[in-house]
């Protein structure tokens, strides 16, 4: 009888433990996602201020946001800058990682260190540095400069992601391809890149997301053509407005869809 009781008590303990764990996880997610949930909720606010109490729902502000040329063109700019800088970051990071993984040379550790160093430099310094250099060279602030700053910021990340994915088994696959007559560009494009595809896609998405979000250097280095974060900042200066909530929600759902899509792609590749 006592054995049954102990087991019963043990069951309770386990239940409490599980309950606590679940509560803790729920609290964590709540902490992370509550602001987003609030943002999304008040984008449907039927009123001029995105603050409680909630009235609505209405799609009025979504209509407003989509009719706002300034916001839409900023979104377009952000997309171009994000895709362009992410693509170049991944290409450069991949090639740097490839070179360091496949060849041995003097000063290799130093080169590796210098490549990842920009990760430790604050965005403000990167932005100011580029601004100073641009004015020294008489180049006006533009989206090109924003793009360059995003490559400076994101390339080390792409490099680190690619570096972590290289292994000796791939070296022999590349050797096999070269042995069968493939030139180096062909080996890279037909063997290395497809083998690394999951890492490359992940690096691209990460770089794109970071570029899409980046405000500081984009603010410093752009003038007439601006990116979405700079445009939203401009809107916020005029006070809180559910329109910014609407545009924020759209950006959030877009990014979430992208991340889910990438995950699905990679998952499907692995399981096949």
């Amino acid at each position, binding site marked *: 009888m006592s054995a049954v009781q102990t087991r019963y008590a043990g069951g309770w303990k386990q239940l409490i433990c599980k309950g606590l764990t679940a509560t803790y996880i729920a609290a964590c997610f709540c902490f992370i996602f509550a602001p987003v949930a609030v943002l999304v909720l008040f984008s449907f606010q039927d009123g001029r201020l995105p603050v409680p109490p909630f009235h609505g729902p209405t799609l009025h502000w979504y209509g407003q946001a989509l009719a706002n040329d300034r916001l839409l063109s900023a979104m377009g700019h952000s997309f171009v800058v994000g895709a362009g800088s992410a693509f170049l970051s991944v290409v450069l990071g991949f090639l740097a990682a490839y070179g360091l993984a496949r060849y041995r040379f003097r000063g290799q550790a130093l080169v590796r260190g210098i490549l990842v160093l920009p990760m430790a430099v604050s965005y403000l310094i990167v932005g100011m540095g580029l601004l100073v250099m641009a004015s020294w060279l008489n180049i006006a602030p533009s989206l090109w400069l924003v793009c360059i700053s995003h490559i400076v910021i994101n390339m080390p990340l792409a490099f680190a992601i690619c570096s972590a994915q290289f292994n000796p088994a791939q070296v022999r696959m590349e050797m096999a391809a070269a042995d*069968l007559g493939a030139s180096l560009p062909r080996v890279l494009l037909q063997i290395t890149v497809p083998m690394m595809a999951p890492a490359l896609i992940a690096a691209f998405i990460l770089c794109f997301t970071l570029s899409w979000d980046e405000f500081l250097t984009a603010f410093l280095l752009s003038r007439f053509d601006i990116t979405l974060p700079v445009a939203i900042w401009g809107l916020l200066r005029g006070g809180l407005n559910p329109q910014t909530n609407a545009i924020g929600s759209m950006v959030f759902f877009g990014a979430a869809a992208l991340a889910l899509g990438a995950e699905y792609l990679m998952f499907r590749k692995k399981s096949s």
Partner: protein
Amino acid sequence: MTVSHPSSASTNHLSVEAVSKHYPGQIALETVSLHVERGNYVVLLGPSGSGKTTLLSLIGGFTLPSSGVIRIGGQDVTDLPPAKRPTTTVFQDYALFPHMSVAANIEFGLKLRGLKADARKVRVSEMLELVGLGQHGERSIQALSGGQRQRVALARALAVEPEILLLDEPLGALDLALRRQMQDELHRIQRQMNRTFVHVTHDQEEAMALADLIVVMSHGRIEDMGPPRRVYMRPATRFAATFMGESTQIEGRIHAQDGQVITLETQQGFLRGMAAPAEGAMTDTDTQSRTWCIGDKAVAIIRPENIKTTPDYGQAIGQALVCETVFQGNYVRVFARSETGQTFVLHSPARQVPASGDTITPHALVDDITIVPAQEG
């Protein structure tokens, strides 16, 4: 009347001429020379660190030699990259392209050679048939077993019709039964394709089963090379003798030489045996390049199956006490030791096994004893 060409290099399909490979603080290969005729199955045999893989890599073009020349079909390929050489390699871990199907793996090299799609398709199915994977063309690499991957790697390398196929421990990752099966397959495929194969292994049984020419390597040098039977029965050096299988080794000094028969003075008494052939000898009797001096240290090598305990069988080699017997199925391995500390290993028929503690008198024929120089160091 035709005048025969003076150069012997033209008759050799693969020539490795005085090739060395030095790494900082390390010598991987030291003045290695090797000549192989077309259609031969060559096995490079040796322990790890013997330089066999380095030699294969030099032939394939993945490593450049510090000095020396490599010729294939008479053409100097020493400075050519792997892609430009008429060789392909089967890697130890197969190195198949994981993102491609079986057929696409085999097709890869054919595409690079500019074959039309129809011709490629025909060739791929031929190769799949050759390696016994006829129905597996559309499978993904991940879905294959180790043995099947091995076959795909073989088909991919052979599809481009290389002059020489290089195999780097191709059977090392397979279990024993599968390894023996793949050995037979390799042998059949090599005969069928009639190409030169160069195969690296540390398994002497594998080497003997496959090779037309065994090259025994140690410490970056060729210890011995020749047909398997010759290298096993009549090894040129003590290392080759030891690496090719079990033997009884009796040390002594050279007492007399009469043609190829050498008399060795040992603690077991005088022992007559055949002089070891020169390294690289194709037959048992090629001993010309050796010089023997009376009084030099030498070792008599006797394979276990050539020692009998019956009287009137060649010469008696002292007496020995049986210390251990090991049942091996169709024979029994007998370990014995003489009063002077000389150990013997012999194979005895399962019917008439001496018991531990018995005294035996080992006998061997002069022809079954090989006298090799004692190695320095």
